[in-house]
C-alpha cells in the first residue's frame, strides 16, 4: 500500500489525500454546532446565586441616557407589542428566532420581555449556547414601566426619598414617562405609554442602526 502510494505523482498524491478527507467528511458530522450545546450547571447556578445575571431598570435607563453603545438590547415580545412600545434602542428578536441568531462573543446582550419569565428562559438558552455576556432586565418591561415611566412617590415620603425622586423624575421625563405624586392606591390611574418617537433628545438611530460596513468583497 505504502509502495503503491509512493509510486504516484505529486498531483495524484494530492488527489488521493483530498479524496480521503472528502470521504471521511461524509461521516464526520455537521461543522455548525449551533443546536448542540453543553452546559455547566454549577457555573450557571453560581451566576444566578450571585445575581450576576441581571441589570436593573435604573441601570439600563442610565446607560441609554449616557448613550452607551457597548450593549444590545433585545425585546423578546411579539412584533405587535414591540411596535406599540419598546424601550429606546431595543431590537425585536423573538425567542424562537433567538436560537438562529448569531451574536458576536464580545457583545453585551440585555434581554427583556413583559415580565421576567420569558427573558429568564431566553437567558438560559443563550448561556447554554456559550454566550457569556448575557443579562436580563430585572422585572422586565413591567418593572421598567413602574420604575422609569410611571414612578410614584407617596405623599408621606421622607426628605431623602423626595430628593431621590427628583432625579428619577428627570430620568422618567427623558423616556417620556409621567412621574406622579400620590397615594399608593392611585397607582392604577390610567397610564399612557409614551409615543415611540420619544425620547426627543436622544437619537434612536444611532446604536442599533450604526452597523459596521459590510464585510464582503
Amino acid at each position, binding site marked *: 500500500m505504502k509502495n503503491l502510494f509512493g509510486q504516484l505523482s505529486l498531483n495524484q498524491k494530492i488527489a488521493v489525500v483530498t479524496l480521503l478527507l472528502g470521504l471521511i467528511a461524509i461521516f464526520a458530522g455537521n461543522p455548525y454546532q449551533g443546536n448542540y450545546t453543553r452546559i455547566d450547571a454549577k457555573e450557571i447556578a453560581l451566576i444566578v446565586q450571585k445575581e450576576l445575571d441581571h441589570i436593573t431598570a435604573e441601570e439600563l435607563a442610565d446607560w441609554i441616557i449616557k448613550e452607551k453603545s457597548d450593549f444590545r438590547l433585545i425585546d423578546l415580545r411579539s412584533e405587535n407589542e414591540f411596535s406599540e412600545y419598546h424601550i429606546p434602542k431595543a431590537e425585536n428578536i423573538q425567542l424562537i428566532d433567538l436560537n438562529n441568531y448569531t451574536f458576536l462573543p464580545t457583545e453585551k446582550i440585555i434581554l427583556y420581555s413583559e415580565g421576567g419569565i420569558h427573558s429568564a428562559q431566553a437567558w438560559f438558552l443563550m448561556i447554554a449556547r456559550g454566550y457569556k455576556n448575557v443579562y436580563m432586565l430585572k422585572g422586565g418591561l413591567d418593572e421598567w414601566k413602574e420604575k422609569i415611566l410611571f414612578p410614584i412617590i407617596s405623599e408621606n415620603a421622607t426628605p431623602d426619598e423626595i430628593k431621590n425622586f427628583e432625579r428619577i423624575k428627570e430620568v422618567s421625563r427623558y423616556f417620556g414617562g409621567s412621574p406622579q405624586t400620590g397615594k399608593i392606591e392611585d397607582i392604577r390611574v390610567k397610564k399612557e405609554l409614551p409615543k415611540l418617537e420619544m425620547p426627543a433628545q436622544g437619537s434612536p438611530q444611532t446604536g442599533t442602526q450604526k452597523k*459596521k*460596513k459590510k464585510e464582503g468583497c
Partner: protein
Amino acid sequence: MNHQESQINFQPKPYMNPYLAGIGLGLVLLLSFVIMGRGLGASGAFSSLLSAGMEKISPEHVKSNEFYLEYLGDGTTSPLKDWLVFEVIGVFAGGLLSGALAHRIKKDIEKGPRISNFGRLAFAFIGGAMMGFGAKLARGCTSGQALTGGALLNVGSWAFMLCVFAGAYAFAYFMRRQWR
C-alpha cells in the same frame, strides 16, 4: 561564462504547480477565516477608494447616494482605514515579492500578436469597467464571491461562479483576436 550564467539566472522562473499554488491560496484563505472570521476580497477596496475620493470632490453628491455612504461608514474613521484596503495593499506587495523572486517583473502589455497596444488597452479598460460594475451587482468579485463563498458553500457564490465561467466561455470567441 560568468556572464552567461547570470543571464540564465535572470530568466523568469516557470510558474508553480497549479495545484500547489491553489493549496497555498486555500491555506491563506483558511487563515483569514480562522483569524478574522471573513474571507478575501479585492473589489471592495476599490469601492472604498472611490467613495473616499468622491467625498473629497463632492461631499454633497456623496451624501445623497446610499452606495457611497455604505463605504464611508459612520464618518468616525477614514473609509480607507478598512480591512479590505489593507488586504489589497498586501496583495500588491505579495505580487511584487513573488514576481521579484522569480524574475518576472517586466514592463509589458499582455496581448496576442493580432492586436495593437492601443486596442489592448482599450479592451482592458472596458473589461475592467464591466468587472467593476458586475462585481458590485453580484456583491463581490472572483476573490470575495467565488473563492470565499465557494469554500463556505454559499449558494449565491456558486451560482455566481458558474455564471462567470459561462459568461467568459460564451464571449471568448469574440475576443480571440486579442489573445490568440
